[in-house]
């Protein structure tokens, strides 16, 4: 765990250095253009702006972001469960001080953490989040936020956003000043040389600098989100909680009081989504959910890294190697909420029994029940996924497992492949269509998971469990 913090801080410093170089170059060229031999003066002014912003952020960033979001602090008496959940996560992460807890009055679902050091940090959640999540889901969200504090992401985000802010401030000021006093400047620069070289360089830096800094900043911010998910799951040992919380949040995550500066601090992007991946502060939420849902066996960093590579079909190292270099394996714990599936069914039935006024809804549900009954008669298999969806699998469906279209979890169908005999036998004729070129895992009808390596070019593979030959169709074949 300590190695992870050390590596995070080192990477933050690299980013600061790159951003610092951009800032200094920007200051130098603008200064040199505006004043004769004023490059150094420009650098000094740029650094002063940056220092001032950093000082402000160091002494008041937590209260600054809290005030911006319009949150108020909650005492323990008002919401003991929220306090309990935060305390549990503080204990799990071995933080020395419990962060202050705030509520944002907003019916939408979101949460954020802020703070320069773990000792001076705060966690804020919306009232909508508290109303709609159960205890396990709330715990997942809080664990994610505590992980941001523990991994020093809040620290990084505050300082980096101030640096980004000063780069943007300087270049915007320069460009605006140029527009207003366009003609008058030219006489002086044309005096020294025919072509205003300095103007062009300064312009290039003023336009490209903020863009470059932002791309860097967002790339790291996205990576830290995955890392916080992995740490959260490691703390709670219960990936389903965070996954279903993210599902609920993804539907109503937009927060009125959020802005571009505070956006990276939230658990899910609180602003309307921009389509271009490069500009997003957060990774796509569907992918985060898919990764969490596919963590069946272990919740350690290794398992998360593996799930990440499998879901995104990439080889990127999302968790630093040093932290992976442990032979630890941590298994998933049970849910503390009694029975998630039965709770969902209960919710489904509520409109029928109580809400008699809405006839349309009860009619639709009654109709659903009748068709379900008919399906049950004709040997359909019913399966509840942990994400709340319910599959109705027709008897013609031959595969032994099903891929949940909502959360991506692979579910084994009970009784499939065992209809003829109780013992798993070679059924023959299994065909697997490769979906990509990376590592893939396929499930044989007998339940055995077989790994396909990227270099495997054979057109069939034998299951070591039941001896069945599975035909492999590679993607390029059709």
């Amino acid at each position: 765990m300590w190695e992870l913090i050390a590596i995070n801080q080192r990477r933050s410093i690299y980013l600061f250095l790159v951003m610092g170089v951009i800032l200094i170059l920007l200051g130098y060229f603008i200064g040199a253009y505006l004043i004769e031999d004023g490059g150094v003066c420009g650098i000094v002014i740029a650094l002063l702006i940056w220092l001032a912003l950093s000082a402000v952020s160091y002494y008041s960033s937590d209260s600054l972001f809290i005030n911006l979001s319009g949150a108020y602090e909650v005492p323990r008496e008002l919401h003991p469960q929220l306090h309990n959940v935060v305390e549990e996560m503080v204990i799990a992460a071995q933080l020395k001080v419990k962060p202050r807890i705030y509520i944002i009055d907003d019916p939408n679902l979101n949460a954020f953490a802020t703070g320069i050091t773990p000792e001076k940090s705060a966690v804020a959640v919306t009232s909508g989040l508290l109303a709609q999540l159960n205890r396990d889901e709330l715990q997942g969200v809080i664990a994610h936020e505590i992980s941001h504090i523990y991994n020093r992401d809040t620290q990084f985000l505050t300082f980096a956003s101030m640096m980004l802010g000063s780069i943007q401030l300087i270049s915007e000021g320069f460009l605006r000043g140029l527009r207003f006093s366009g003609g008058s400047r030219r006489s002086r620069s044309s005096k020294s040389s025919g072509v205003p070289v300095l103007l062009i360089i300064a312009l290039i830096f003023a336009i490209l600098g903020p863009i470059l800094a932002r791309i860097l900043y967002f790339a790291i911010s996205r990576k830290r989100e995955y890392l916080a998910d992995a740490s959260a799951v490691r703390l709670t040992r219960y990936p389903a909680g965070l996954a279903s919380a993210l599902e609920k949040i993804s539907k109503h995550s937009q927060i009125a009081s959020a802005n571009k500066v505070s956006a990276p601090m939230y658990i899910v992007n609180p602003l309307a989504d921009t389509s271009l991946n490069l500009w997003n502060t957060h990774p796509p939420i569907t992918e985060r959910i898919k990764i969490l849902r596919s963590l069946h066996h272990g919740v350690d960093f290794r398992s998360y890294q593996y799930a990440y590579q499998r879901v995104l079909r990439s080889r990127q190292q999302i968790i630093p190697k040093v932290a992976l270099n442990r032979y630890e394996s941590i298994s998933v714990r049970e849910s503390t909420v009694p029975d998630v599936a039965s709770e969902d069914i209960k919710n489904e039935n509520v409109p029928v029994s109580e809400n008699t006024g809405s006839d349309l809804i009860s009619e639709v549900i009654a109709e659903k029940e009748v068709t379900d009954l008919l399906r049950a008669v004709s040997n359909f298999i019913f399966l509840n996924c942990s994400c709340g969806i319910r599959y109705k699998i027709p008897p013609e469906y031959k595969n032994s497992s099903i891929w949940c279209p909502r959360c991506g979890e692979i579910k084994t169908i009970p009784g499939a492949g065992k209809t003829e005999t109780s013992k798993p036998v070679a059924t023959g004729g299994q065909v697997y269509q490769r979906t990509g070129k990376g590592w893939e895992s396929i499930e044989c009808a007998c339940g055995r998971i077989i790994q396909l390596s990227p270099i495997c070019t054979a057109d069939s593979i034998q299951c070591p469990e039941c001896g069945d030959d599975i035909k492999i169709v590679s993607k390029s074949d059709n």
Partner: protein
Amino acid sequence: MSIVGYIFLGVLGVVIWYFIFAYNNLVKLRNVLKNAWSQVDVLLVQRYDAIPNLVENLKGYLKHEKEVLENVTRYRSRALEATGIPEKIEAEKRLETALNQLNVVIERYPELKANENFLVLHEDLLSFENKIAYARQAYNDAAYFLNNKIEQFPSNIIAGIFNFNRATYFEAEEHKREVPKVSFS
């Protein structure tokens, strides 16, 4: 001094530097472990203090579950008497099982979940269990790192010289979800 002498001195320096580094690392890990244990200890004491009050309040709601409640009280006093970390861990396991049974029993009374006062009690009970579970998790993580260093070469040499002992893991009893016997006396 000859070149061999310099090389010898260099190697000696590296070895000494490693000794200091490994020793400090072990001390750090041991302190983390101690800290984690004191966290567990504080929470356990808090729970001992909270149990009598909790049981008293629950008695009103769970009139037919006397046995389960009595179990909790009994194992609490036994855990209080235990001394030394291994004995404490053993006694705690019993108490944990009794409290888990209590939780299972509570889930059998859905009408209680509508009662505000009861919900507060239940949240307290649940949170105590969770906090202890997480503190134990942190303690076990610390124990794991320390034990690893004590056993792995070459840090095991330093651990041997300075008498670093392996830490005992605080394993929880497998969550017993079976429903205890009901007594209608």
